[in-house]
């Protein structure tokens, strides 16, 4: 596609449930990033992939959060046992290489009731 695509755009779930958020980066971009943006805050780094491997997952808040990118293109962010504090917009971004311009998707807004 022309840009970074994220689905779903909105997800409402109940506390304790499992959610998956998907990101389809710009074709050919090898680097993929997940950020989380809470209300009134700037985006906060979660994890970055170079190809299929997670090059840096130091931003994942705890072991309920996990992300994969099995074929080096689409990535899925998985959140287990969701908590109300997980409510935020989850932004995906991709770049050509690790220091090229970063292109963001529209984000997935997660609301945990």
């Amino acid at each position, binding site marked *: 596609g022309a840009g970074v695509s994220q689905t779903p755009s909105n997800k409402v779930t109940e506390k304790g449930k499992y959610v998956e958020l998907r990101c389809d980066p710009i074709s050919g971009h090898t680097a993929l990033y997940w950020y989380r943006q809470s209300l009134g805050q*700037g985006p906060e780094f979660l994890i970055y992939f170079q190809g299929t491997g997670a090059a840096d997952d130091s931003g994942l808040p705890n072991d309920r959060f996990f992300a994969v990118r099995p074929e080096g293109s689409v990535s899925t962010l998985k959140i287990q046992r969701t908590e109300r504090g997980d409510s935020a917009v989850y932004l995906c971004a991709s770049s050509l290489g690790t220091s090229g*311009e970063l292109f*963001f998707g529209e984000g997935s807004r997660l609301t945990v009731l």
Partner: protein
Amino acid sequence: EDKVVQSPLSLVVHEGDTVTLNCSYEVTNFRSLLWYKQEKKAPTFLFMLTSSGIEKKSGRLSSILDKKELFSILNITATQTGDSAIYLCAVARMEYGNKLVFGAGTILRVKS
């Protein structure tokens, strides 16, 4: 710990006014400072600054970096209602590629 602080948190101006947004930072092994505009969800890239004192300009927007005093400003002249958005400042470290540290943003509202 890396830190990016933006000011003001928000401001309201009238069309035609000039605004200056501020960004100060503390980061180890600084590589670049970036400005983004966020209107709804996706931040869109405005500028990347790596060298002190060199102004970058795009239409009515311009930005400059001071690496000695560790700050940057974003200027918008002759503001329009379409400039209403959140403006985000972020810094990148040498060794971390696009693992950016963002400030909280400045909310700009331009009234007609």
